[in-house]
C-alpha cells in the first residue's frame, strides 16, 4: 500500500497506440499521448481529423479497434458504468431534450448519475439566471450550452471532455461560456480536454496542446514547451533547404521562404541571411496542420535544426 501511495499519480489520460477503424477507413490511428492531471488540454484539428473519435474513445461511447486509452489509470471501455462515471462530457451542439425543462434535465442527471451534485447544478443555474422551470427549447443557444456544461460538472467526474463547445455560439456567448468553464475548472481542480477548430479560443485557456490531423497525432505536449522548441525562420528563397531535418512547414513567397522548424534545447545556429523568431501558438498549430503527413513530432525525439 505504501509503495502505491508513493507512486506517481496516474495521468488523467494515457492513450497507447490507440486506433479506431470505421469499415476500411481509419478514423484514428496509432495515437499515443499523455495528459497530466490538472491540465487544460486543447485538441486541435480540421473537421474529420479524428477529434470526435478520440473523445468518444476516451469517454466510453466507442471501443477502440486497437490499443487502449486509460483515464486516471483505468482503461476506458464502452458499456461500462465505471468508465462513464469518470468523465463528464459536453457533446458538440450541446444536445438536450428540447421539451424538457431545465429542472427535468437536472432530474435526469440525478437519476442517471450516482455522484450527481444537485446543489451545484441549482447554484449554477441561479448564478446564470436560467429559470429551472423554463423549457430547453425556450433557452438561447448560450444558455443551452451552459445547461449542458452544468450537467457535465454536476456529474462530479474528475475529467471533463468538451467537443467543439463554442462552435455554434455567438462571440458574446463564447466568452461567457469559456469564462464559466475556466472558473469551474479552477474551483473543482478538474482536468479538461477541449476540442476545437477555433485556435484562438484555445490559445487563451490551454496549457497543453494536441494537434490532430488525418487521424494521427501531429504534435502533443505542454504549450510553453512546444513553443520553446520551435522557431520561425525567414530568409531568402532557395531550393536547397527542402531536405532539412526538423522542418515542420515551409511557406514560399517570390523572394522569401519562411520555415517553422523544431529546435533542440540550445538556440540554433542560423545562417546570417536568416532570421530566427519565436513562434506563436496559432502559427505553430497551422504549421503542423499544413505540414502534411510528414510533419509529426515524435514523442521524446530531439531534432537539432541544421541551417547553414
Amino acid at each position, binding site marked *: 500500500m505504501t509503495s502505491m501511495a508513493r507512486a506517481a499519480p496516474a495521468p488523467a489520460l494515457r492513450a497507447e497506440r490507440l486506433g479506431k477503424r470505421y469499415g476500411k477507413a481509419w478514423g484514428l490511428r496509432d495515437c499515443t499521448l499523455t495528459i497530466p492531471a490538472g491540465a487544460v488540454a486543447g485538441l486541435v484539428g480540421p473537421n474529420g481529423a479524428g477529434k470526435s473519435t478520440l473523445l468518444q474513445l476516451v469517454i466510453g*461511447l466507442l471501443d477502440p479497434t486497437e490499443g487502449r486509452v486509460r483515464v486516471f489509470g483505468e482503461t476506458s471501455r464502452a458499456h461500462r458504468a465505471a468508465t462513464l462515471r469518470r468523465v463528464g462530457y459536453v457533446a458538440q451542439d450541446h*444536445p438536450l431534450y428540447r421539451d424538457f425543462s431545465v429542472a427535468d434535465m437536472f432530474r435526469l442527471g440525478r437519476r442517471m448519475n450516482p455522484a450527481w451534485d444537485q446543489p451545484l447544478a441549482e447554484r449554477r443555474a441561479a448564478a446564470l439566471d436560467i429559470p429551472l422551470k423554463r423549457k430547453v427549447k425556450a433557452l438561447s443557444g448560450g444558455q443551452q450550452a451552459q445547461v449542458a456544461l452544468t450537467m457535465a460538472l454536476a456529474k462530479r467526474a474528475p475529467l471533463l471532455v468538451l467537443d467543439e463547445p463554442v462552435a455554434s455560439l455567438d462571440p458574446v456567448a463564447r466568452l461567457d461560456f469559456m469564462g464559466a468553464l475556466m472558473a469551474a475548472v479552477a474551483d473543482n481542480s478538474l482536468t479538461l480536454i477541449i476540442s476545437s477548430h477555433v485556435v484562438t479560443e484555445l490559445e487563451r485557456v490551454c496549457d497543453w496542446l494536441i494537434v490532430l490531423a488525418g487521424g494521427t497525432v501531429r504534435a502533443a505536449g505542454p504549450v510553453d514547451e512546444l513553443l520553446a522548441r520551435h522557431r520561425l525562420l525567414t530568409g531568402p528563397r532557395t531550393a536547397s533547404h527542402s531536405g532539412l531535418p526538423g522542418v515542420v512547414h515551409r511557406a514560399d513567397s517570390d523572394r522569401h521562404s519562411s520555415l517553422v522548424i523544431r529546435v533542440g534545447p540550445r538556440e540554433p545556429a542560423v545562417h546570417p541571411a536568416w532570421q530566427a523568431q519565436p513562434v506563436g501558438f496559432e502559427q505553430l498549430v497551422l504549421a503542423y496542420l499544413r505540414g502534411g503527413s510528414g510533419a509529426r513530432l515524435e514523442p521524446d525525439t530531439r531534432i537539432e535544426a541544421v541551417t547553414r
Partner: protein
Amino acid sequence: MTWVTWRQHRGQAMVSLAVLAGLALALFLVSEPMRQAFGQDGITGCVARGTRTAGCQNAIGAFLSSWGFTYNQALIALLIIPGLIGVIIGAPLLGRELEEGTWRMAWSQTVPRTRWLVSKLALVSAGLVAFGAALTGVFTWYRAPMDQLTGHFTEAAYDFEGLCLTASLLCSFAFAVLAGLAARRSIAGMVAAFLPWLALRGLTDLFLRQHLAQPLAKELPASASIAFGPNTTSMTGNAGDWVLGATRAAGHVFVTYQPAGRFWTFQAIEAGGYLTLAAAALGGAVWLLHRRAA
C-alpha cells in the same frame, strides 16, 4: 430510468389514453342502437333457442343487413390503429435520439446504453400491453352481441379480441424500434416498420390463419346449402364454426372447417408468432446498439 422513461413518453401516454377514450365513446354511441335492435328484433331469443327456424333466419338476415357493415367490414379499417400506435411510439425511441444528436448526452451519463435501452423497452412495452388490453376490452364489449351471430373467427372479431391485438401492437412497436435505429430517423423508421407490419397482418388474416391447425372434415346430406366463412347459421350446424371448403360428391357434401372451440388455441399460436417476431426485433435492436461502439 423509470422517471426518465416516463418523462420522455408521458406525452405519448396521454395521447394514447385520449385515443382510447375517444374510441370507447364513439363505439358506445354506435353500439347503443344496435344493442336495442338486437333485443327488439327477437334475435336474443333466436340465439337462445336455436336459429334454424325461418322466422329467425329472416330476423338475423335483416339485422345483419342493417348492422353487418358497421360491425364487420368497417371495423377492419380500425385494425391499423394498433399498428400506427406501435410505430409512432417505437420509431422515435431510438430514431429521434439519433436524428437530434441527443444520444451523445443520453449515453454519456452513468447508465450504459444497452441497460438504458432495455429499461426503456421494458417500461414502454408494459405500457403498450396495458393499452392493448384496454383496447381489446373496448372492442370485445362493442362486438359482444354481433359475436353471437358471426362467431369469433370472423376477422372483425378475431383481430380485435383475445391476444392478437396486443401481440400485433407489440410487434409493430418492436419493428419500429429496430427501423428507427437502422434508419437513424423517426419518420422513415415509422414507414419502414408499418409497411411490413401491414403486409404481415394481411397475409395472416387472409392466408395463414386457416392453416394454423389441421381442419376437421364432416359429411353432410346432399340437401345442405353451401355457405363459407364463420357463421352462426354455419352449415356444420355448430354456431361459430369456420367453414373453409365444401365439395358436393356422390350424394353428399364434404365440409372442411375450423371448429369454434379452437378460438383461443388459434389466438395463442398467432399471438406467439407476433411476440416471437417482436422479441427478435427488440433483441436485434439491443444487439445493434451494443455493436455500434465496436
